[in-house]
């Protein structure tokens, strides 16, 4: 705490202080709200149900994988292999359906493949190899498998179950977004209400403390990567269903979007702090910004630049500024009591 912040604190009333802390903590939620308002003024198409549902459908794969990534980051890990798992699952799904296997066999099978890939990542990480390295290797080799299996070709998908997953709806909400919300709700419950979520946060928050308290750290790590692998597979199913084909090129750069959404939402890259609601908002923000800039006719390359800038600002807010403001508010609170 610097002197300037603590001398300034005398002037702020408790309500004012809470307001400032809230502004910083929920900065991304506020940013999303402001962006929605601004865009709805700038483009009359923006706020139409069609457009909003469309953006939500686009964001669904990132939300689905982001829930897993939130757990991985809670343990102070990272998973760069998820985009490639999407590609592998995409070609396997299309290939196995084309062989005549029914969807109720293929879908559980590819989910199991995703979980197995994640479990392998997690296992190697528990041997002491940094998560960054393990999953970077996964990023190249898993996509390699997808190309080997498919010979580089996309395979069309005509299965009715897959068509429904990609294009159908549940109670007026398109299936991909409905799936992503169901995943987010389950993920929120798991992170905030169960022993597993608590232990994941403890592992990332201070591994040595978690170890001497007897937590099963290796099991927790393997599980969060397995879960993320399975969710990447689910996203792979959704992406392939949406495009009606299985392609080894699907999910390129998706890992970066997932990580960006998770960090935007307020989950710490260094472990111990994680929020599922934040991840959902982070993903929506990325896609609504992209959609809004598209509607305004902005050059798509600028969209990438803007996404990068938002990411840096968000991380600054979530780490440096958030900590400063919280310790300032605490110090001010103690002065008064």
């Amino acid at each position, binding site marked *: 705490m610097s002197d300037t912040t603590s001398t300034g604190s005398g002037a702020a009333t408790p309500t004012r202080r809470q307001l400032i802390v809230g502004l910083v903590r929920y900065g991304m939620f506020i940013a999303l709200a402001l962006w929605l308002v601004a865009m709805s003024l700038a483009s009359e198409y923006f706020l139409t149900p069609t457009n909003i549902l469309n953006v939500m459908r686009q964001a669904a794969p990132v939300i689905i994988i982001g829930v897993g990534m939130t757990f991985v980051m809670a343990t102070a890990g990272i998973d760069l292999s998820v985009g490639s798992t999407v590609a592998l699952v995409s070609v396997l799904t299309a290939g196995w359906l084309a062989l005549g296997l029914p969807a109720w066999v293929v879908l559980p099978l590819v989910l199991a493949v995703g979980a197995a890939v994640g479990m392998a990542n997690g296992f190697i990480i528990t041997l002491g190899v940094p998560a960054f390295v393990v999953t970077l290797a996964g990023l190249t080799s898993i996509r390699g498998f997808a190309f080997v299996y498919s010979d580089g070709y996309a395979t069309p998908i005509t299965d009715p179950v897959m068509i429904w997953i990609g294009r159908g709806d549940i109670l007026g909400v398109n299936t991909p977004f409905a799936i992503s919300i169901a995943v987010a709700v389950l993920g929120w419950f798991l992170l905030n*209400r*169960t*022993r597993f979520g*608590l232990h994941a*946060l*403890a592992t990332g*928050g*201070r591994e*040595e*403390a*978690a*170890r*001497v*308290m*007897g*937590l099963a750290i290796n099991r927790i790590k393997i599980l969060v990567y397995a879960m993320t692998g399975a969710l990447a597979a689910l996203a792979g199913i959704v992406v392939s269903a949406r495009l009606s084909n299985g392609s080894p090129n699907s999910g390129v750069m998706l890992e970066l979007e997932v990580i960006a959404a998770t960090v935007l939402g307020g989950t710490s890259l260094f472990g*111990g*702090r994680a929020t599922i609601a934040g991840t959902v908002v982070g993903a929506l923000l990325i896609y609504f910004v992209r959609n809004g800039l598209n509607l305004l006719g902005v050059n798509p390359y600028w969209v990438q630049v803007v996404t990068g800038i938002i990411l840096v600002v968000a991380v600054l807010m979530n780490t440096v500024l958030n900590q400063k403001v*919280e310790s300032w508010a*605490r110090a001010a609170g103690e002065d008064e009591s």
Partner: protein
Amino acid sequence: MSANLIEMRNISKSFGAVTALSDVTLTLPHGSVLGLVGDNAAGKSTLMKVLAGAITPDRGKILIDGAPGRYSHPIGARDAGIEMIYQDFALVPDLTVAQNIFLGREIMRSVAGVPILDRKTMSARARELFAGLGLRVPSVTLPVVALSGGQQQAVAIARATAFNARLVIMDEPTANLGAPAIEKVRETITRLKENGVAVIIISHRLEDIFAIGDAMMVMKQGRVVGTRAVDDTENAEIVEMIVTGRDPRERTAVPA
């Protein structure tokens, strides 16, 4: 019931080329307070981590109440009633006070067959715990990172005494604390002893051990120098043992 709560026999432990413990033996009667003293790197923390199950020794065995303890895991030690307050407190900064206290031993409730964390009960129990110990924290739902050093220590003490401990190990509990907090630690140890709980305290402050301890064990370079009852020794003798690494009584005993 054996006369001794703990017997550690011939414990050895090396970290690569460093021999942290060689052939260390320690005996602790029920409900007694033992001070463990010695220079830096004497092996005090390592010995206590072995006892708490956080480090697996290379050799040696541990008897709890005369029965061999199974020591592969901190959970094994905690189930046997052995709790340790680590030098750095071993708290997770972003978890709340209550979450830290119950970490690894959460109270669960079942909703439609699904076990979920019973946060209300854990918070209530944590509050009772602090009240019972006469310790204070601003709120049990605050993250530990928001607390002062003394308050964090209170959390570590509360955690170590929350589950019917038979032995509480404290690693340098008075380092970096002000006088009032040191007084609180002394009070806590006295209270534990009154309740029949044994305490091992690692400390550089010999005056604390003379004030509240029953016995003292001096270590140097991974070996036991000697053990003394507190009322059978004095400050100068202990300091000599710490510095020279020799037991003066053994030295005079041999030629005579």
